[in-house]
């Protein structure tokens, strides 16, 4: 079963809601009652077309203000794939929402209005997808109907965007450009006769060709212990299983492993998924391991393959995306959560802050505000076992939790 998570990004009115509604409609994912609601609503507003953006509009308060302000999840499926779209609209808390949406996604769609081309927001979208190392980016150049489906317009925007990618921190990222009209349905699910110069796949065809399983092999195996299973029943009196999720690579029964923080070595005896022993567990699977030796691990410990140890750090350099209304000050203390491991931490310094237009400039004046991104240094009460995010997308991130409000205040990407 294939599940593809996609984040969407676009400036207001670029047609993001319309595109998502169009995808739902053209894949037959809208039920009759939902379609009827859209029909009625479109009619009430006096439109002579179906306003598919209504398919995704959310909370009452937001609807009243005519804006959406958070991350919404939308689902549709084809014969081969279940799609989950993390729609990250919103104006005020834009960066925060986009980072959140992109963090759970394997692919991103960046929308550009063909009449406007690359705008300041596009920098931000591109920057965030680069920072998070989203593997597949689709640049959908929308509203082609308003520029007469002109190839030159498309090529011009593509060239301007490619200019941006030259400074990308993530050159391996795959970027695909597509001309579409979300409103009229050209090249979204169905090919368009009005784009004779375009010979590539439609948006959906392109998405169908992506292989999410291939995105999860990102480095050495990391297995944080989530929970220890000790049934102490008549059938399993001495069973001690380590429940957790496999990150990065594939783990096999019989693998020689090292346990952190103890540094002890052992071998994987069995890998269980429910009552079935597995030969191997692939990245993303939630399994239960037993070890050859009777060693007592607890939540927050990590199992890795022998010879593939991550770094043990009590000081970290990281790129932080600040998500709290209360600004970050140097010296502030937080609970740092890295997988199942929580440690106390202190931000010792804020080295630099990215300028808010994401053009690449920086400044450093001590604070970090909501939606700002900066480089910081942290000091930790205990060691954490990490990899740099650019080398290991699954073991290089953490969140900071405010000890007073308990809110998630930031996400960090380890340098």
């Amino acid at each position: 079963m294939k599940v593809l998570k996609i984040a969407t990004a676009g400036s207001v009115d670029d047609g993001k809601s319309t595109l998502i509604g169009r995808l739902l409609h053209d894949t037959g994912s809208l039920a009759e009652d939902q379609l009827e609601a859209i029909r009625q609503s479109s009619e009430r507003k006096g439109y002579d077309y179906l306003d598919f953006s209504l398919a995704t509009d959310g909370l009452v308060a937001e609807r009243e203000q005519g804006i959406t302000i958070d991350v919404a999840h939308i689902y549709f499926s084809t014969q081969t794939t279940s799609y989950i779209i993390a729609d990250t609209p919103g104006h005020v808390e834009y960066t925060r929402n986009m980072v959140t949406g992109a963090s759970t996604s394997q692919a991103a769609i960046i929308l550009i209005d063909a009449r406007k081309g690359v705008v300041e927001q596009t920098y931000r979208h591109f920057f965030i997808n680069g920072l998070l190392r989203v593997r597949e980016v689709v640049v959908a150049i929308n509203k082609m109907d308003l520029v007469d489906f002109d190839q030159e317009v498309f090529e011009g925007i593509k060239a301007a965007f490619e200019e941006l990618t030259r400074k990308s921190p993530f050159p391996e990222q795959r970027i695909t450009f597509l001309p579409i009209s979300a409103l009229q349905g050209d090249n979204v699910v169905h090919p368009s006769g009005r784009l004779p110069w375009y010979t590539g796949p439609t948006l959906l065809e392109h998405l169908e060709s992506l292989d999410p399983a291939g995105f999860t092999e990102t480095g050495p195996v990391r297995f944080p212990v989530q929970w220890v299973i000790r049934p102490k029943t008549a059938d399993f009196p001495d069973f001690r299983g380590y429940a957790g999720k496999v990150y990065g690579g594939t783990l096999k029964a019989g693998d020689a492993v090292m346990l952190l923080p103890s540094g002890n070595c052992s071998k994987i005896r069995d890998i269980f998924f429910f009552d079935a022993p597995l030969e191997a567990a692939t990245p993303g699977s939630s399994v239960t391991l037993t070890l050859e030796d009777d060693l007592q691990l607890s939540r927050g410990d990590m199992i890795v393959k022998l010879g593939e140890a991550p770094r043990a750090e009590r000081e970290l350099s990281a790129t932080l995306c600040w998500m709290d209304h209360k600004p970050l000050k140097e010296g502030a203390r937080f609970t740092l959560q890295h997988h199942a491991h929580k440690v106390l931490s202190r931000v010792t310094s804020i080295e630099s802050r990215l300028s808010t237009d994401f053009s690449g400039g920086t400044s450093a004046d001590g604070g970090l505000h909501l939606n700002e991104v900066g480089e910081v240094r942290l000091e930790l009460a205990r060691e954490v076992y990490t990899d740099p995010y650019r080398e290991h997308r699954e073991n290089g991130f953490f969140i900071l939790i405010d000890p007073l409000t308990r809110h998630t205040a930031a996400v960090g990407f380890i340098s």
Partner: protein
Amino acid sequence: MNPLEHEAIYILREVVAQFERPVLLFSGGKDSITLVRLAQKAFYPGRIPFPLLHIDTGHNFPETLAFRDRLAEELGLRLIVRHVQDAIDQGKVVEETGKYASRNALQTTTLLDTIAEFRFDACIGGARRDEEKSRAKERIFSVRDAFGQWGQRNQRPELFDLLNGEIEHGQNVRVFPISNWTELEVWKYIRQEKIALPSLYFAHQRPTFVRDGLLWAASDPIVYRSLEEAVENRWVRFRTVGDMTCTAAVLSRAETLDEVIAEIRQSRISERGARIDDKRSEAAMERRKEQGYF
């Protein structure tokens, strides 16, 4: 491998690790039955390390209650049942009257009282984001205050798979492990795992009447019915099996899982379309959620 199944197991394990007194809110419907199956898998060969809680409106289908009791017994699970009737008797809530009278909204008081009684800090539920527009923004860990209220401000960004379960005294978290599943995916999983379901989900003959274009189960005096609303025996099944007063039946001859799945694939009506309650107002769910509804 089914990534959604693995994701749900991961979430359930986070719950037991991060909270002291979790509970699974069990409605007897297919989504909560699926959750029980996932919990079995998550903690095998150990037992499911939390009880089930059912808030009985007093208007549940008898088939659902029988199924509930059997499931809990077979798996050796602790089952807690609390009754909306008790809150009515104590004068804490007032029974609705009239054509659309339902105890669905009254459940909230009983639920909150039960959460307080047992000091539950995490309530696991089977809601899915595809069910309805306002659910689309729901978090996997959804923080509620002591009044059960959901507030946009309390909601934390969920980055990667990191779940922040830190709460203040009096707060609790509603947890939705199958957030990312769709109705069809739940059904396919039920088929794959050969999970038993209450008979209501399959076509059977039942006395029903038509109101507002929906099929209501005729069950006097629980479901209000006027004299003009004539009862007829029809072949029906239910897509959701909540309280009788807010669950509509659909005409169907689908008697097996394969037939049900085929029907859902072709269906042009959303699951919500068969929930009487939501017909009352488009924004009904969202308002209820603000007031602590599950």
